[in-house]
């Protein structure tokens, strides 16, 4: 891809990232951190891509380990965030 296109995507994403969390109450700091943590679990996509084109046993072994770790990050992250937020349910009455 064009370096300029990538740079544009990067810079715009930085601004969006700054904007969406600029005003957040301290109550939500932990769930927000946990949710963001789960989102970077999409490195799973990268791990699958490299596993697909692994040609040696070393590559495949490392890629498989990466998939295990990334899955734990992604799935565990969303589940634990949901559990934290579940606790907040009661307060809306």
């Amino acid at each position, binding site marked *: 891809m064009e370096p300029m296109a990538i740079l544009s*995507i990067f810079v715009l994403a930085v601004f969006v*990232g700054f904007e969406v969390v600029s005003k957040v109450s301290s109550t939500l700091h932990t769930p927000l951190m946990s949710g963001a943590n789960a989102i970077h679990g999409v490195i799973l*996509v990268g791990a699958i891509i490299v596993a697909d084109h692994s040609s040696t046993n070393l590559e495949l072994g490392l890629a498989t380990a990466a998939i295990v770790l990334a899955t*734990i990050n992604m799935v565990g*992250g969303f589940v634990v965030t949901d559990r934290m937020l579940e606790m907040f349910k009661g307060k809306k009455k």
Partner: protein
Amino acid sequence: MSRTLYDLIGLAAGIAFILALKGLSHPKTARRGNLIGAFGATLATLVVFFYVSPESSLPLNNLGWILGAIFIGLVIGVPAARKVQMTQMPQLVALFNGVGGGAAALVAIVEYLHLGTKATTAEVIFTVFTVIVGCVSFSGSIITFMKLQELMTTRPVIFPAGRLIIAATLVSVIGVGGWVVVALGTTPLLILAGLSLLFGVLFVLPVGGADVPIVISLLNAFTGLTVAASGYVLDSVLLIIAGTLVGASGTILTRLMAEAMGRSLFGTLFGAFTAKPQDTGGAAEDRPVRSGSPDDVAILLNYARRVVIVPGFGLAVAQAQHTVRELADLMISKGVDVAYGIHPVAGRMPGHMNVLLAEASVPYDQLEEMDEINPTFSQTDVAIVIGANDVVNPAAENTPGCPIYGMPILQVSNAANVIFLKRSMRPGFAGIENELLYEPKTMLLFGDAKASLTKVVSALKTL
């Protein structure tokens, strides 16, 4: 599936992540936000299985390995997330962040081995970046996990010539990184990974226990950036968007957390090197304190007009959130004005207490934030501090040079009476003596918070 469709679905997942972060910033939409994020991540993962890149074919190569590895990840990750106690959530988040960083570093190494000499200089630079930061995030998170799980000391670990060793490690990391870019070898890359792991450990060791959440948040942002860098190497717009979003929002969040604790980010990360050993004074242990019985506490509460409950990590450890609510309800039924004073960083993570009390269905309007509650302490008859210490320690206001100096605290010392429910005279997570414990208006009730509260409740019922 065509490249265009693949990229469009990736874009949809990227939008889902933006909506997820936006949702997570507001209490009402937080849970939905998280689900949107999970949906985006699932979508992004599924679509990879149907896209044929120019150099591969369907079904994916090594499909059995891929599915097997995902299965193992699910079997480890889901039960861990479901079964974890509320008290241990911060460590789990740290661990999840660490494995994410490790995954990013591994992906970068595999892609580097695969590309070999075909890699462009830009790709090698991004690979080096991912390996360094991913490894630092991995080993650093493991150390934060061990600190929070109390598998190791929670105090800053400072060793002789620590500053020199850390600086030397950093210089060698950068040097070896440059070597990889120039020489393009597998061995230098593995040396780089090893040095980066070491740097991660050295970087987190000097951080004091109370500051660990800030470091987790920072490492979380780091991992995000590694994912973005991987996106460049793997030509995936989705990874660039998702990683950058987490990197940027994580940086802001880290700053917000540091502000809530009244710390500068710089001070948190490097403070341990400049801090003098604190004069906690060994003799302090021998000074007299006033300890009371559950009946004494019940009598004090029975005749109070206004009581403020200050929960801390001890409440979480004892799982006493339901009992404390029972006590509060009982007091309210006796006409006592009850409020909870919530310090933003009470517990092991910002918002920890809100989550815990919400679990016990404590009405939200009884929870008051620090700025609201502090002016009311002078009209408060009794402040009950349950398993909290550092967040009420006046040393933060009047002892320059102590590790928590400058952190805003709940000014319980302004209340007419202060009751501490504590397990022992051990100082709090930050390891600093609390002068408030020795004041004449303070009464201590030793024991497990839940057991003590249960006794106070039954004593109060008979009055």
